[in-house]
């Protein structure tokens, strides 16, 4: 057991640090440092542009998507080097947030299932942030039950014709490409009739309509497909094998979300360290301390759990279902942390505008964003199912639709 850098790791760290020191957009450092989940906007700049510029700079110097192979725009780094990079990149890493779906899920899926010429054409501009990707899985009728989706893909010569609707698609409004899960055969049980593609979001017939979220922001969208044509060579995996392809995506999703999720704890600790309550400093209050300690060990437990996972990865193991723990714990924790921070503010906690609220409204922003964290990428309940079934080996849920042809499954709960 060893936490120290090996000589090679130390050298890598020093090189990374020097390059970041010379190249990072320092003018945004402070603002980024103080931003938290739900509030990663820049006051005087368009964050997407700043993020793209930083990503491109990294890519040109060989620092983008470190663990990807070089020929696909990466650096061929070890998982440990990736962690060292994240540590050194610090608050500037928050700029990569808008690429997380592309880098964490679409890229690995392309790498596993796309043709070689497509990998070489599409992956480098994805790594460099020049092209942004989105993940078109969820539908009104299929979120947790992804395999319940209804978007149809019908073969027409060398092309597929897509009709249907996706929903909650993050970043679709600024995405160039997407990976798309469709139904190609409604007459077989639902998991068997799915097929995966990637497509150009500018294709005729694709319409993106932003949805206003509960938090007030508009990061996700409805996406409508009307006779959209996708060439067969953009199919990922075999016809009818879309479920397996999507499992690869989701496993990577869990790993990339799980490792980077924010818990709100560092923000709360910092806040309590300077906060004065009626009876004195918050950090000296018994009740506050008990709460902080309880969250501190969750946050550190998650940090070291992901380090253990990275150690395992670096020995050649694949990311497993146990990685579901990150999002499960962090999701409800950030919600609780934000609730508590507002409780400490008393009546003033109700004010949420960044100009007038305590610590620029960061906890109010967290509170309003947190419900989405517990839903996106799999709800708490789905995460618990995964742990129970795939880690602990408990029986799967009873599935009444398992052997039923998809077009015979009831579609409404009531009436």
């Amino acid at each position, binding site marked *: 057991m060893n936490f120290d850098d090996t000589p090679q790791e130390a050298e890598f760290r020093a090189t990374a640090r020097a390059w970041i020191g010379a190249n990072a957009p320092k003018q945004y450092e402070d603002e980024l440092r103080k931003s938290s989940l739900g509030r990663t906007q820049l006051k005087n700049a368009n964050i997407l542009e700043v993020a793209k510029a930083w990503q491109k700079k990294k890519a040109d110097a060989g620092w983008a998507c470190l663990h990807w192979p070089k020929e696909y725009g990466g650096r061929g780094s070890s998982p440990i080097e990736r962690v060292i990079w994240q540590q050194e990149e610090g608050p500037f890493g928050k700029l990569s947030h808008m690429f997380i779906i592309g880098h964490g899920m679409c890229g690995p899926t392309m790498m596993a299932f796309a043709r070689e010429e497509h990998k070489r054409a599409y992956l480098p501009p994805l790594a460099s942030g020049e092209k942004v990707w989105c993940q078109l899985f969820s539908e009104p009728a299929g979120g947790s039950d992804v395999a319940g989706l209804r978007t149809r893909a019908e073969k027409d010569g060398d092309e597929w014709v897509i009709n249907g609707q996706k929903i909650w698609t993050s970043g679709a409004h600024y995405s160039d490409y997407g990976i798309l899960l469709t139904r190609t055969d409604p007459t077989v049980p639902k998991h068997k009739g799915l097929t995966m593609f990637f497509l150009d979001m500018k294709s005729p017939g694709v319409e993106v309509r932003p949805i206003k979220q509960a938090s007030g922001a508009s990061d996700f969208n409805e996406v409508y497909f009307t006779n959209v044509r996708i060439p067969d060579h953009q199919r990922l995996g075999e016809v009818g094998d879309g479920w397996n392809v999507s499992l690869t995506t989701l496993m990577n999703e869990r790993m990339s979300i799980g490792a980077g999720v924010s818990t709100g704890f560092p923000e709360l600790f910092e806040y309590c360290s300077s906060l004065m309550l009626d009876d004195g400093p918050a950090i000296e209050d018994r009740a506050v301390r008990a709460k902080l300690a309880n969250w501190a060990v969750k946050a550190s437990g998650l940090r070291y759990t992901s380090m253990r996972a990275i150690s395992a990865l670096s020995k050649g193991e694949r990311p497993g279902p146990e990685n579901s723990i990150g999002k499960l714990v962090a999701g409800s924790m950030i919600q609780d942390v934000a609730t508590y921070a507002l409780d400490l503010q008393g009546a003033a906690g109700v004010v949420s505008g960044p100009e007038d609220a305590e610590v620029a409204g960061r906890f109010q922003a967290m509170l309003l964003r947190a419900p989405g964290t517990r839903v996106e990428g799999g709800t708490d309940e789905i995460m618990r199912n995964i742990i129970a079934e795939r880690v*602990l080996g*408990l029986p799967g849920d009873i599935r009444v639709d398992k052997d039923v042809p998809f077009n015979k499954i009831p579609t409404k709960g009531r009436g």
Partner: protein
Amino acid sequence: MNFDFSDDQKQLRDQARKFLTEKCSPKAVRIVLDGKAPYDKALWKGLAEMGFLGVAIPEEFGGAGAGHLELCVIAEEMGRANAPVPFSSTVYLAAEALLIAGSDAQKKKWLPAIASGEAIGTLALFEGKGNPSPKNVKVTAANGMLNGVKKPVADGAIADFAVVAARTGSSGRENDISLFLVDLKDAGVEVKSLTNLDPTRGQAEISFKDCKAEPLGAAGDGWSILTQVLDRAAVLCAFEQVGGADRALEMGRDYALDRIAFGRQIGSFQAIKHMLADMYVSATLARSNSYYGAWALSTNAAELPEAAAAARISATQAFQHCAKNNIQVHGGMGFTWEFDCHMYYRRANAMALGLGSLTYWEDQLIDRMRKKNAA
């Protein structure tokens, strides 16, 4: 970075697990639980023969000289097996105090005896209600004589010697406290067994009346030595707790697969699945915090105090959480003396208090995090 135990250490874990599965079955634990023996003497002897008692004791003092990571690995197995032996009091508390502060002569006298299983040691710190604090130490030491009462003292009734915290000054500060070594067979020592939450590990009251006391470490250093001992023991106990939590989770999982209700395995009900998933989550967080503690302990890192407190809190929570929900998964069976669930419930709740309660460690953690942030 490599955040895992080595292959050798994992092999040692397998060896310890195999040994304990054979020599420390629930049936064997029950002999102590039912009050038929104060501890499992045969197991204690076996642990000595395997070299487990002295695994972190240097070879020059009769140990295996392996190190603290190896001790962590064994501690986890002791927790899994719910071993009814004075392992934590002797190996984590008494031996560590000697290693930190003992003179060469003191180490030579006691450490080989610990490693060989001849001597059982303990730490006599508490005096009734309250957590570790200099102001809660009322036992006095003056002119080489101890006076006062300690309670509860873990394994006090079977221990051969104790490291005793006593007051040697009156300033009211930490440097009033000094440590002493007491041979519990000496005149002036009176020991009384106490009924406690976990009969598989005894607790006692020890009274000292003009009892001979030999200083351990410099006068006035007692509190700083104690803090170090408690930090080390916190990490080691955390491994026992993780082992116990894992075992409780495993018992619950197995029962959920076996028991049928409403025509289904109860493990197919989501309420049960999700309860077990949450047990897994807490045990995993505790394990990860404990690994970090193990690293800090084995390298004597500056991070040890913070890492120890985090491991302690997390492992205490996890063991309590898993032990209580294991009973819930078992339903009525879980609440019978006959099933083993309560042994882990008892151990979890007793261990939650043994080194000072959660309240104490929460305070420690926050103080230490503040210090780090200020630095």
